[in-house]
């Protein structure tokens, strides 16, 4: 796809506007108990070389046997990306030497991947959506880890990650800004997490991005690209792209040429730099792994997996809009995480869904964000927030009191209705009680009454006084009406 960026996405250089073209290769660790071709654990961490089998260490005569669940996970992911599932795919060997690559080759899929073309719909704002093409998804082995700072003159090799299953998801060069790339990765991660096929944990390296960046004048063909390897946070993806695009534009505007190379983003310095060690001309000598037969399965197997697929974020969002009457924006926020969407639906059951959405998005998410917590560890449950909303809807408490109540539930827990009872937070709607309070205020402040008659905006002062006098429990609407009739304005 060669869609052109709208003018707002262009970068202004010294000699005119430039368009950035971005494609991403995401390595997503498959959620599985054991490795792609061995029975060793995939658990993160562990003592060095403890999650390693003789197969992972490439001992002589060891052979790979494929993990059925990793295949199923790749198919589920392909289905989630609305992609072509290939009933026959082939594992190839990618040959190169590196100390953390024990076999001297990585088992990957080259010509015939398990998943073909798909698409990811990415919302940039309530009104702007782009569609990013997925070129392919293939299964491959992760390498081990080389640690370069444990010794002065040597590197240490830990094979715990060696052989862990990865899905490499290759996008088309369909993104035109760092923001679009960030949004794409965020959406992809949401889909993977919904599917349960990758936990998306970037700090632990479960999701890594290689970013291909090139720049061109509008309407020109694709420029020479550079690959920024292993960017490990969504924020850095955006930064790395902006920095790299600027660098390339600078070179081109100075009459230079872009060298196709592999680069590394240094977040501390805010620059990308060439990885010279990776610059040696590669010749991976791909060929089908003779230890493994082609990977084949029936369409019925794919259909079976498809029938157990969860509702995905796009469908869920559409349903929230249709079923609950939510705005697309609110629906979009709620479906970002499957747990949030489930939370909302539980809370909204039998209630005013819009009101619930408001409370979940504004009060709950706001508070969770502030405290750096997530929905799974929310101190306020869906049942509790539903209880608060019930008290508002039945006029037992006012909106303002509800915020106080939320605070109590957050810090102390408990049943909202009971808290309102025991703490006497019930809103006063009884007009004789309010009239009594109004009469007292009017009697005590004759000067203010005179002022109010001249200037009706003074009414607010009276409202405030009445609320104060009732401990904030008076129904504000009732106070207003009674005041108006008593003051005659």
């Amino acid at each position, binding site marked *: 796809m060669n869609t052109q960026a709208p003018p707002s996405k262009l970068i202004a250089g010294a000699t005119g506007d430039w368009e950035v073209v971005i494609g991403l290769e995401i390595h997503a660790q498959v959620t599985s108990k054991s490795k792609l071709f061995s029975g060793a654990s995939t658990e993160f961490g562990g003592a060095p070389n403890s999650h390693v089998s*003789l197969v992972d*260490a*490439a*001992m*002589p*005569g*060891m*052979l*790979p*046997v*494929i993990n059925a669940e990793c295949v199923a996970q790749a198919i589920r992911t392909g289905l989630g990306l609305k992609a072509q599932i290939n009933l026959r795919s082939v594992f190839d*060997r990618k*040959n190169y*030497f590196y*100390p953390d690559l*024990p*076999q*001297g*080759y990585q088992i990957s899929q080259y010509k015939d991947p398990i998943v073909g073309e798909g698409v990811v719909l990415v919302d940039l704002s309530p009104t702007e959506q782009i569609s990013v093409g997925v070129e392919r998804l293939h299964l491959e082995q992760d390498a081990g880890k080389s640690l370069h700072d444990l010794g002065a003159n040597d*590197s240490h*090799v830990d094979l715990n990650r060696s052989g862990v299953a990865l899905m490499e998801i290759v996008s088309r060069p369909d993104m035109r800004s760092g923001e679009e790339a960030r949004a794409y990765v965020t959406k992809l991660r949401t889909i993977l997490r919904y599917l349960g096929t990758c936990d998306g944990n970037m700090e632990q390296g479960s999701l890594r991005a290689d970013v291909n960046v090139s720049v061109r004048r509008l309407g020109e063909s694709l420029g020479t690209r550079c690959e920024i390897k292993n960017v490990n946070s969504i924020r850095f993806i955006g930064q790395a792209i902006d920095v790299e695009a600027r660098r390339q534009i600078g070179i081109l505007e100075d009459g230079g040429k872009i060298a196709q190379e592999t680069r590394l983003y240094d977040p501390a310095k805010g620059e990308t730099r060439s990885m010279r060690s990776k610059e040696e001309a590669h*010749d991976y*000598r*791909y*060929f089908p792994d*003779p*230890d*493994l*037969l082609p990977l084949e399965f029936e369409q019925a197997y794919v259909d079976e997996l498809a029938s157990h697929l969860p509702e995905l974020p796009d469908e869920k969002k559409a349903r929230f809009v249709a079923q609950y009457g939510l705005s697309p924006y609110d629906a979009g926020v709620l479906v970002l995480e499957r747990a949030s969407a489930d939370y909302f639906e539980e809370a909204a059951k039998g209630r005013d869904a819009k009101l619930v959405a408001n409370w979940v998005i504004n009060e709950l998410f706001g508070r969770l964000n502030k405290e750096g917590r997530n929905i799974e560890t929310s101190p306020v449950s869906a049942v509790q927030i539903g209880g608060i909303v019930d008290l508002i809807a039945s006029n037992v408490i006012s909106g303002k009191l509800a915020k106080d109540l939320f605070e109590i539930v957050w810090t102390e827990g408990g049943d909202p209705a009971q808290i309102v009872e025991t703490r006497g937070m019930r809103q006063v709607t009884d007009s004789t009680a309010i009239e009594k309070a109004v009469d007292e205020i009017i009697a005590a402040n004759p000067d203010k009454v005179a002022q109010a008659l001249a200037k009706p905006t003074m009414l607010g002062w009276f409202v405030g006084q009445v609320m104060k006098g009732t401990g904030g429990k008076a129904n504000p609407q009732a106070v207003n009406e009674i005041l108006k009739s008593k003051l005659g304005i």
Partner: protein
Amino acid sequence: MTDLTRLTLAEARDKLAAREISAVELNQCFVDAIARATSLNAFIVETPEKALAQARASDEKIAKGEARPLEGIPLGIKDLYATEGVQTTAASHILEGFIPPYESAVTANLWRDGATMLGKLNLDEFAMGSSNETSYFGPVVSPWRRKAADGRISDAKIVPGGSSGGSAAAVAARLCLGATATDTGGSIRQPAAFTGTVGIKPTYGRCSRWGVVAFASSLDQAGPIAKTVRDAAILLRSMAGHDPRDTTSVDVPVPDYEQAVDASIRGKVIGIPREYRLDGLSEEIVALWEQGIAWLREAGAEIRDISLPHTRHALPAYYIVAPAEASSNLARYDGVRYGLRRTGKDIADLYEKTRAEGFGKEVRRRIMIGTYVLSAGYYDAYYLRAQKIRTLIKRDFDLAYASGVDAILTPATPSPAFALGEKGSADPVEMYLNDVFTVTVNMAGLPGLVVPGGLSADGLPLGLQLIGRPFEEETLFSLGQALERAAPAILLPESWWH
């Protein structure tokens, strides 16, 4: 006392069962024979204590009436099979000192069935060779010697063939009752033919490759070398079987091969492929082949001329496929996790020095060829094309079998064994031609059995090869037995190697 090393495996088994001999007694005989035969260089590592300890356990089992199929039977193990706690080298400097913490599937099956281990047998380095001259631990010498026209025995050292040269020489020289071997392009059958022993390469997938040092994964297959067809059948039954750790191993029940040995071959249709009548094939090989045809016909088989038109492409295609797979399979020998390490100024230097010194000439050459044919721009012209030709070779066999042929009879090798240093020193291809009749079988994944057919003019053994349908090793054993019965006994010159 009779020399127990002269027994066949089946005879020894029966004597053990009848308690005419003890396992310790039997194993001690072989331990002693091996100690006297160091001039053959058939063993890289000898494990007499292990054999005797296993033999003692076997005697206990026999006493309790719990004898297993190979109880107390002393075997030699090709040093390509990983043996737990016992050095496993693939006859390469790069693996010198490597002690596997695991046991190969096939050897584990043999120990499960009660066999004992005499030691690790020499071979061509990483099973690459046809004469056993490429071993880092020195060449294996055949117990056979040439006989001049005047009947004088020459003392020129003869090769046992390769790569399972240690296995073949040890069985022929009565240093074990049977041996494990492996066959990628003829490495069981050619040395069997050169030493007057019986060797079978079973159907690809019949034996697990787990724990066998890989040479060319799509061609490698384990099998036995033994004194007789019956012995080979007994051994294969224990070695074979499905292994979930090898994705290419087949989940098909293992028949009692020994029963097939005595089955009639009447009515079996034997194909004689015209393409195997190579130009310049020696008269004695042609005569041997004719003799084999006559023996099978006399035993009641029907002989039929067949065509396998792509035969001549098999050897060139093999010399693309095998080195290509090997170049990748041998990448793991990098000096990082096990085996030889030569330090260098950086990691690349370490790799290059370790591998240059750790691999011998033939292995380096094949890695280079394999690397070249897989490299950018050459993959389609070489590797991909060779794999297409493999499909054509396999199709030839499929058509022959579909037309009703039960098995195919060919010579095993184009010549008898030769002297050490006689072949391949100037041109590697000269050595490769040894496998011209055997390699098609690997390319098509079929079973192939070699039995002795007679002696050459200079007194060296010549073998006949039977090629079977996939998983029809039983037919091969029946036919092999018919040949063995008909052929003259091949008598090894009296021991000169003690």
